[in-house]
């Protein structure tokens, strides 16, 4: 990021919004909110220099609690929305937030193809293993057998291993953090924003109201930090969470080209799509129709 120096004096209050915060006490979203604000400040990005997109869910109410250009869209669709914006203006970093319900059930297809396409954007998964805003239903990331709203006898569906799933898509950046470790999460988010390509950041998040199986204390006790490693090592460490949970920037491939960089038609063009809106003379394209 080559941002102007005048942003060096940014502080948390530049990102604070006056709106009332409506999350439950002890919600992991507070930690994630703090980490994103710190990451942006440390990257010397002013609120008007970023676009932050939100899915619908408890996490999405963050749209009210920080300033910056924001788009709070539809449930399940945040990745595609953010990708479109990132393609149109690659100079504005795009960060998309979504929950495990939105991004592993409703809109899982978007995640699959965004990883494949390697759009230059950062995706932060609020992984609290349930649908919080609709009062505690099971998501695809809820462990098998948990008793949840609409599953009073325990869930029947198998748990989807988010890390195994994402690694199977040949991602260019995978990280995992927790809402309880704000310092580490700040560094992860910074690395994600700096990465050229699709950054997948899986944040294990406490949900004191509906998630009784992976609490703040449980997560703090199980998580440990690892160094970034090669694909196979990283995948192995990420997938096996039976004893302890590996966190940090697990894997990064800095050699991969982004979607936009690979487009033959856009090679050698300095302008962004947002700079190019004007009437275009199509005379040169008419020869084949005469």
């Amino acid at each position, binding site marked *: 990021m080559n941002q102007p120096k005048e942003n060096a004096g940014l502080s948390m209050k530049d990102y604070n919004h006056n709106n009332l915060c409506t999350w439950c006490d002890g919600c992991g979203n507070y930690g994630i909110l703090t980490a994103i604000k710190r990451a942006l400040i440390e990257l010397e990005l002013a609120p*008007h220099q970023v676009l932050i997109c939100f899915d619908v869910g408890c996490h999405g109410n963050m749209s009210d609690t920080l300033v910056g*250009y924001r788009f709070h869209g539809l449930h399940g669709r945040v990745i595609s929305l953010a990708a479109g914006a990132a393609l149109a203006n690659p100079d504005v970093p795009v960060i998309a937030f979504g929950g495990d319900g939105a991004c592993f059930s409703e809109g899982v297809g978007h995640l699959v193809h965004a990883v494949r396409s390697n759009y230059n954007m950062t995706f932060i998964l609020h992984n609290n293993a349930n649908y919080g805003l609709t009062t505690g239903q099971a998501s695809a990331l809820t462990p098998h057998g948990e008793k949840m709203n609409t599953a009073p006898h325990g869930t029947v569906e198998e748990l989807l291993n988010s890390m195994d799933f994402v690694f199977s898509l040949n991602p260019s950046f995978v990280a995992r953090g927790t809402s309880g470790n704000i310092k580490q999460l700040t560094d992860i988010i910074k690395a994600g924003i700096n990465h050229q390509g699709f950054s997948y950041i899986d944040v294990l998040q406490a949900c004191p109201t509906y998630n009784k199986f992976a609490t703040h204390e449980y997560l703090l006790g199980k998580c440990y930090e690892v160094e970034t490693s090669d694909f196979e090592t990283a995948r192995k460490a990420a997938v096996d969470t039976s004893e302890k949970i590996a966190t940090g920037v697990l894997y990064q491939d800095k050699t991969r080209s982004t979607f936009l960089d690979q487009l033959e038609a856009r090679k050698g063009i300095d302008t962004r799509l947002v700079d190019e809106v004007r009437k*275009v003379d199509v005379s040169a394209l008419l020869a084949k129709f005469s």
Partner: protein
Amino acid sequence: MSRISIKIVGAQGQGVNSVGEMCAKGLKRAGYCVFGEREYMSVIMNGHSSYQLEISNEKVRSAQEKSDVLVTFNHHGIKNNLRDLIEGGVLLHQTPQWKFGEEDQKFIDANSIKVIYLPTEEILKKLNAKPVLGNVLITSVVWSLIGRSSDELKEMVRERFGHKKDLLELNFKCIDEGTQLIEIEKLVLPEPDDCWKSQLLITGSQAMGLGAIHAGCRALFGYPMTPASPLLTFLADIQGESKMLVKQAEDEITAVQMMVGAMHAGTRAMTATSGGGYDLMTETISLCGISETPAVIVLAQRPGPGTGLPTWTAQGDLLMAVSAGHGEFPRVVMSVSDAEDSFSLMMDAFNYAEEFQIPVTVLTEKQIAESLFTIDALQVRGDRLQVRRGRLVDGDGLKLLRASDRYDPDAPDGVSARWLPGSDAPTYCAQSYEHNADGSFDESGENATAQMEKRMKKMKGLKRVLPEPELWKVNSEKLIVNSDFSGEIDVLVVSWGSNKNVILDSINDESVAYLHYTYLWPLKTEKLVELAAKAKKTVLVEGNAQGQLGMLIKQECGLEFDERVLKFDGRVSVPLQLIS
């Protein structure tokens, strides 16, 4: 109108389209207005398909029911399409030792049909040419039948294969063989008119693609679905020249969301689909309504419901486009009718989307998207059209902004200032939840009322600026758009979309006037009511089962038509004989 019709039929993959396109191009260059219409089945190989060419020295926009010449690639064509010939028509077939059935022979005798057998396989064998060259051979036979010189055809072939010397020579040999083959009386074409030579021969989809480029559209996000796919393919094929970003997304929801993201960031982007894909996009259209994000969606209609008739034409999605998406919000629904407005209306679509910060749906139909039209190149080159971006703020204007300007409920016409992410200005939230002026949540009843009223006010502004429907009438022996709505009218025909072409080709005297609706929502009805009051008979023509425009008209002004002509079999709308 003096015109000739040539119909080429065969199995898909046999070259029906190449022969049709080659003939069309040659004829246009020779000084004819050409209209080409494709019919085919939803398969890749072996389905029965046809390409019908209408040729005239006057403006021709539609195909007749019967043809002067029928060219068949296989015996199915002979059996299925023999009765598409007029009395005295010519059948050119390529089926060796074909014996006509008793009924067919009777039809041939009764209608004096001239039957010509083309020994294509034999000739190709003699020339040691591959089967694909059969297309050039057949084209040259047709060419000679309509009395054109083989040099014209050779020139076109040279353009296409000039870089391959061997192939070019073989092509020329085929042309020489083909032109010597026929010894019957040639068909007499009307006298050519040089005015057509400089015009363009182009499909609705191609014209729409060029129109989008011309309008400053810099990205297309799509997902394949007939009959929207040709637009996606065309823009993908020319991205090297246009430098446009063309993305085939994983589904229609993604396509429309990416378009909205790109529009929000500040470029011009669009998506295109057919009815089923539009269904999937509707939640996002509703999102655009509340977040006040400009959006342009092309809806290329085919018959539904369900998968329906994928490769046929329809006008069944008007009511869907007008009401798609939950909740209430302003929007524009407009429809193209031919290649000319497929080009020009794209600028309007983007302008209205940005000026009013609303979703705009551009309807087209298979009949427009895939038909070949002869259009005035000046319409495409002209600078009549301008990019208008409404209340988009940049430069010094940014300094005066407050975050609460974004959704200011008191903005004139309900259109508040809009500025782009990355602008050095106060920031706001584009919100799908009901929100207050800066995009923050606000569930109060007062705010909900104020914001709904702000948005819905746009409908009034739109009604004020949208053009009136076009009144086509014969005036001093010429069929033209009349700006003057006075004068006598016997029959008032009202329709939209591709029906315009058939209707205009059928009007030949002053007694019938045609009112064409391009802008379908919000719907302007004042002129219609005025005209209907003095017409002796009003007739509604639509390509759907319910008379959907008629339903909207009744809803808006109470008018009911004396007669409704509705067609919903996937085929093109009826000729005017049925309604006069």
